[in-house]
């Protein structure tokens, strides 16, 4: 816990801001000149950056994007819980519980290793095709299930890294106070582990927002599918840009929120961040 300098001197900070601003504008200007000056630019602009098209297709796609948000919210909730369970199962040391550990290992190997699109098809078309009574055949349902299954595998590895980063002496200290193994995990190890992995968890959350578009492969119409339909009407690609902007409107604030949360936590618990 040595004191690290968090901030260079005020003077050099202002100098830094100025230099950064100048160099950024030079690079951006050069880039703009090269791109807009190129031979094919008018056609690219017409196809991808058509302002009228953008305004015209925005409401429909934004409407469909609400579906993406819904899928994301529901899936993320389950993922955060299931992934923690899988990570804890993976970490068990008792021989009696070895089957749980084995399950966790196989699960993660399998669902992290197969492309999501394959699993989407297998679950979304395969399971309803079995025709078992009581099994839903709603593509929305199977789309969400697939995302939960795939991302649980990824996120459990994030949690596991967090759990393993907590020094064993923390567990020992808790156990030597008389806490049970579960209590030590619940009150001492997991709270520290989860705090440490908030940035990578957020990273995966952003990955998930984009993967919500995969659900469209089963038929449902969300933002990506809606823009695809608009594109195929007249082969202008601007609707894709609309979808891209919508995704960015969610993912960029999420990233900034994470940074803020992490900084606040550090400030609260560490002396050198005062």
């Amino acid at each position, binding site marked *: *816990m040595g004191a690290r300098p968090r901030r260079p001197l005020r003077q050099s900070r202002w100098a830094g801001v100025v230099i950064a601003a100048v160099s950024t504008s030079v690079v951006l200007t050069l880039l703009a000149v090269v791109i807009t000056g190129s031979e094919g630019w008018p056609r690219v602009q017409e196809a991808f950056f058509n302002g009228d098209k953008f305004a015209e297709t925005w409401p429909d796609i934004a409407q469909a994007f609400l579906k993406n948000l819904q899928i994301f919210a529901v899936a993320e909730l389950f993922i955060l819980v299931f992934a923690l369970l899988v990570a804890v199962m993976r970490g068990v040391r008792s021989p009696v519980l070895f089957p749980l550990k084995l399950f966790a290992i196989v699960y993660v190997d399998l669902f992290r290793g197969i492309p999501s699109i394959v699993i989407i098809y297998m679950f979304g078309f395969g399971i309803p095709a079995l025709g078992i009574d009581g099994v839903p055949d709603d593509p929305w349902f199977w789309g969400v299930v697939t995302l939960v299954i795939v991302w649980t595998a990824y996120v459990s590895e994030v949690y596991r890294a967090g759990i393993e980063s907590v020094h064993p*002496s*923390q567990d*020992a*200290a*808790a*156990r*030597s*106070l*008389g*806490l*049970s193994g579960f*209590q030590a995990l619940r*009150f*001492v190890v997991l*709270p*520290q582990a989860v*705090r440490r992995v908030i940035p990578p968890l957020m990273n995966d959350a952003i990955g998930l927002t984009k993967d919500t578009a995969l659900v469209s492969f089963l038929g449902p119409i969300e933002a990506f599918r809606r823009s695809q339909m608009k594109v195929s009407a007249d082969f202008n690609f601007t609707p894709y840009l609309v979808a891209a902007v919508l995704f960015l409107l969610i993912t960029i604030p999420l990233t900034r929120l994470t940074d803020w949360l992490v900084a606040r936590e550090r400030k*609260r*618990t*560490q*002396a050198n961040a005062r």
Partner: protein
Amino acid sequence: MTDLSLPPDVARRPIAHTELGGEALRIEALYKSFGELQVLKGIDLEVAEHEVVALIGASGSGKSTLLRCINLIEPVDAGRIRVSGEEITAHNVSVDKVRRRIGIVYQSFNLFPHMTVLANVTLAPRKVLKLSRGEAEARANALLTRFGLADKRHEHPDRLSGGQQQRVAIVRALAMQPDLLLLDEVTSALDPVLVSEVLDVVRELAIAGMTMIIATHEMGFARDIANRVCFLHQGRILEQGTPAEMFGGPREPETAAFLERVIRAGRL
């Protein structure tokens, strides 16, 4: 030889011990190996209630391992440990229940960094002893006040000095009201100027009659505070006796050689 390890006001101040009571701990033929390495090779040790036993010996002699075995944090290979007559190494014993009665404080404090001082101290009383928050906090506040930490109770451990952190760790163990307290080189990770504040706490506990086993490199402290000093050498208790016997004229050449090395290093 000047004493470099202890400030003058701490050193050379033997304490008045509480009269010893019945058997608090009995260890019989304790063995422990890590893989090929045999660390404890048949330890026999008895500790009476209110007794303060200092474990001395070179690094690697088995002091820490012995303490960790008594707390059952390390499973023992062979041998028996009894606490107040009850065998804790028996198979049907709940280790969690044993650990409630035996406190241990580690060299590296091992406070929970995500919790305030108060939460560190009240966690085990609340979750293990099932005290209410109010009861646990009253108990914690009394201890924190007694050891001069009351104003730190809402701080996180990273904001405290090493000496303060170690005192909190001792308070955390005391909050469980253990029958026996194990101290594993509690000052070894501290800045020399912070050593005395921690030793003062231990001294106060000794005067109050807390039964303790203290692994330490602070020989001056061991001499002042212990009823008995045990010299561990290569996994065995080679020699034991009162501080006067051990530091005055040890029988075994290994003990004498160890103490001489310590004196040359300026720690006695």
